């Protein structure tokens, strides 16, 4: 005949069942708390004023770019009005308009492709592979290179127009394009012949590294057709100071 367990013994077994997860959970919470405490202590002591300064400078830059765009539009308006007076002025204005377009100083829209590039969001990546699972400056230069090869007419990275003086710069894990702070995800918009652009991106000889990291480490990389893409005008400085026409 079975005797039911004594109430005391039953309570003990309940406590034991709860003990393991409770200890485990406590450990995990402590681990998280410690990691965050360490980081915030560091960033408060050294980084906070620097981050504030960087953000303030980026905001200032946005204002300066808006001011410059306004002044360029004002100059354009004055010249356009004046150029209606003579034939020579009209011709010069046409040349100026063509040059502005080819230099990237005018906004463009049209069909093309959008390339999305992002850090791997999955957590299954081992620490050894972290470097391969995040976006680098060279990934952006490689993508831009592939888009030009495919016949792109205009390219922008997160709304920063790519012009002759444009560079992608990487400090730590932050990326700058045209001297503007950026962070993933990146949207690279390329206006141009869609089939040729897609062909360039699909070419197995192009972007081998990115494609491999997408397949193995889960790097975010997607190329898709898009219509009526808008690419803004370059809003930075021209900086022609040392080069003289020869």
């Amino acid at each position: 005949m079975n005797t039911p367990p004594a109430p005391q013994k039953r309570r003990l077994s309940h406590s034991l069942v709860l003990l393991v997860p409770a200890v485990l959970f406590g450990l995990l919470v402590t681990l998280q708390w410690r990691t965050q405490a360490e980081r915030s202590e560091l960033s408060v002591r050294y980084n906070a004023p620097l981050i504030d300064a960087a953000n303030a400078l980026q905001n200032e830059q946005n204002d300066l770019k808006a001011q410059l765009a306004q002044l360029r539009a004002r100059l354009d308006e004055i010249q356009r009005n004046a150029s209606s007076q003579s034939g020579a002025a009209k011709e010069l204005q046409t040349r100026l308009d063509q040059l502005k377009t080819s230099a990237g100083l005018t906004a463009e829209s049209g069909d093309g492709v959008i390339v999305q590039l992002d850090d791997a969001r999955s957590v299954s990546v081992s620490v050894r592979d972290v470097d391969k699972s995040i976006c680098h400056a060279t990934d952006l230069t490689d993508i831009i290179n592939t888009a030009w090869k495919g016949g792109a007419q205009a390219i922008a990275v997160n709304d920063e127009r790519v012009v002759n003086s444009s560079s992608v710069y990487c400090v730590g894990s932050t990326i700058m394009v045209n001297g503007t702070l950026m962070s993933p995800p990146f949207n690279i918009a390329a206006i141009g012949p869609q089939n040729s652009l897609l062909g360039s991106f699909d070419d197995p000889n192009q972007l081998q590294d990115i494609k491999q990291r997408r397949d193995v480490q889960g790097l975010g990389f997607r190329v898709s057709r898009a219509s009526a893409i808008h690419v803004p005008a370059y809003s930075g400085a021209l900086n022609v100071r040392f080069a003289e026409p020869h």
Partner: protein
Amino acid sequence: MRTNRGAIWVSVIALFLGFAAVTQVRSQDVFSRSLNLETPASLTTLIANLSETNNELRNEIFDVRRDVADAQDSVSSGKGTLTEAERQVAQLRVFSAQSAVAGPGIAVRIDGAFDERALSDLVNELRNAGAEAIAVNEMRVGPKSYFTGTADHSIAVDGRRFADRGWSARSVRLMSFMSR
């Protein structure tokens, strides 16, 4: 039996929470790319770069403001804006690599193993350092230039392959942001 089932549920939830907590820690450590995670040294470099860009913008604003004033004067005095438009045409031709240029700068010569990605990197670094005009083996690099590898392990710029294997990228003006 009822209390036992309750204990199992509590364990399951605790395990789930523990897993979620670890996931959170890892995702914050590994994948967050905000400025918060940069070292003070990196942040200082970022600030130097931002300041440099803003100074260039201020200079340009100063120039264009003067251009606007000049154009207004010319229009009101009946001279027209031809000279100003010509100056702008000359500037944009340089900016978009449509006119030959001369000026101070540096020359880089590379011997040995080199591929199209390395060349692309080098051009990016030169632009980043403020190069106003760049040529690779006497071939001007333009706004839409691209670099490709050829079947015989050589490099092509804008689809045109170079015959020699010693690469030299010449740039007009090189000024490093950091060295100032």
